[in-house]
């Protein structure tokens, strides 16, 4: 039987990891992910997480240990943030190109400089082309459910890729709310044990991992890797559907839509700001404005077809990015949506917004303003080639 508790996002992630029965964990603390490591070591100490655990000297070693462990065929988990992810870049890329289904939560935090510890998914979105699957979530229940599903997606035979479940630092990691925790039996029934068959370091079946490889063969591996990313589009939806059957909660698979059916305008975003968007969309609807939300859950693989479908027949859209794409004048998600539409030959008026960097709050007021501005841009038939910056006005008592 599941039970209801009040958890912060980090504790929700730690419970998900525990319930998924990882066999090896290696993690290094970094704000705002630190409590995840503390919770996991506590679970380990009290016997509720019977795995091999390594308290490493760096994130580079955390991912390296998991790469080694995964090469012996076992289930692996870790979590990190920001600079820790950056330090992992080398083994991060390798874990995906070795096709190792490691699960890693990324507690999104802005990249320095300037010195900061606060939220923003610049860290993981920058690494969207390193071959991992990346899913972004909106609240703590979704952290827990998606992290459990992530093992299933990553380990499925047609995918075999590592996966990140990303959530906003502080706004989710340190926010407490009601979360339903499934029982171990329920999760076991959903998630069978994992044993690698495609690649393994084992004296019983000796093989070389990573021989010096010519470009032609390397391209073959890359092609298969890209096909596996596409297969993940299906695997994510399947895992969500099965999870919904068993646990009664669906998160929509690769995307989530809210009040889009009869919408004329769509707001597009990912992560915790989608909660404020839902609230503001309801307000706008109450005033007769037909606006809906397209929440991107899977950034990699990018759900191109679902995005095209969701936007079909709309007047236009606006994208709120909590990140920047240097040198392109917009945020990363805006570019992704624009590129997907180009592939369908579609052209919509569109507004681009950047805000909420470095833990700056995306308040209801700001989000409502972005919706209003989107409608103006779309009605004027314009396409933003430069993002508008969402800034909170100073308040007085």
């Amino acid at each position, binding site marked *: 039987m599941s039970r*209801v*508790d*009040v958890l*912060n996002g980090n504790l929700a992630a730690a419970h998900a990891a525990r319930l998924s029965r990882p066999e090896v964990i290696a993690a290094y603390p970094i704000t*705002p992910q630190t409590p995840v490591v503390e919770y996991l070591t506590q679970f380990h100490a009290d016997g509720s997480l019977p795995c091999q655990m390594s308290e490493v000297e760096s994130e580079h070693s955390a991912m390296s240990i998991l790469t080694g462990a995964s090469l012996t065929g076992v289930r692996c988990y870790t979590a990190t943030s920001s600079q820790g992810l950056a330090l992992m870049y080398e083994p991060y890329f390798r874990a995906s190109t070795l096709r190792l289904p490691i699960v890693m939560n990324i507690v999104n935090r802005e990249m320095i400089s300037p010195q900061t*510890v*606060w939220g923003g998914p610049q860290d993981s979105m920058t690494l969207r082309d390193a071959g991992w699957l990346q899913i972004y979530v*909106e*609240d703590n229940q979704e952290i827990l459910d998606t992290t459990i599903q992530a093992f299933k997606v990553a380990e499925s035979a047609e995918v075999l890729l590592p996966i990140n479940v990303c959530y*906003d630092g*502080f*706004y*989710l990691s*340190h*926010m*407490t*709310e*009601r979360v339903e925790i499934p029982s171990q039996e329920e999760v076991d029934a959903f998630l069978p044990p994992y044993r690698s068959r495609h690649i393994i370091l084992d004296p019983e079946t000796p093989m070389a991992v990573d021989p010096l490889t010519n470009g032609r063969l390397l391209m073959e591996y890359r092609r298969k890797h890209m096909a596996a990313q596409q297969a993940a589009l299906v695997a994510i939806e399947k895992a969500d559907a099965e999870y919904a059957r068993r646990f009664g909660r669906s998160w929509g698979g690769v995307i989530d839509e809210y009040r889009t059916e009869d919408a004329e305008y769509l707001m597009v975003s990912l992560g*915790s*700001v989608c*909660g*404020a968007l*839902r*609230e503001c969309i309801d307000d706008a609807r109450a005033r007769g404005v037909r606006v809906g939300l397209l929440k991107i859950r899977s950034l990699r693989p990018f759900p191109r077809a679902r995005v095209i479908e969701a936007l079909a027949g709309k007047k236009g859209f606006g994208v709120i990015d909590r990140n920047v794409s240097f040198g392109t004048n917009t945020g990363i998600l805006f570019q992704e949506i624009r590129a997907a539409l180009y592939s369908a030959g579609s052209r919509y008026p569109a507004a681009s917004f950047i805000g909420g960097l470095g*833990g700056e*709050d*995306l*308040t*209801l*007021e700001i989000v409502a303003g972005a919706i209003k501005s989107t409608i103006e841009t779309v009605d004027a038939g314009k396409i933003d080639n430069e993002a508008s910056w969402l800034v909170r006005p100073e*308040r*007085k*008592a």
Partner: protein
Amino acid sequence: MKEIRLHGRGGMGTVKAAEVIVHAMVAQGGFGNSIPFFGFERQGAPVTSFIRLDAKPIRPKTQVYEPDCIIVLDRSLQTAVDVFVGVRENAFLIVNSAEPPESIEAPKRVTTIATVDANEISIRKIGKPIPNTAMLGAFVKCTGWVEIDAVVDKVAALWGDANASIVREAYDSTLILRR
């Protein structure tokens, strides 16, 4: 939806107190969330925490700018930060103070003021001035937004019976001024 803002200092258990209120709300079948505003947490530094309570799921994951209730765990903070910024009409104010509520200055929008000598109760019961549990008792007495038993149960589970008895005593000894 009710929105609450807590002002405290590092080491007073401000963030934990906010979580207890959410626990109590969920235990009685409601919904709530709490978000701490984080700096580098150090003992003595000003700490702010935000709470939302509602009968239905709460979607915004943002800070609270227009609180219905303000909880001040350390009166000296009033000189460091403007604790009343954004406060709504008919708001509640709960202050850790040995003085009666009549002595507390507050804008007109604040219509209910409560005080409790949280430090005194805490020192007497557990030997240290950690005001968060007493402030929980005062909060419940003043607003009635969550049930006292749910708060006491959660505090007992987290920190034991001595702390739970602080909540009860604070609940009983809180002075309230409605104006």
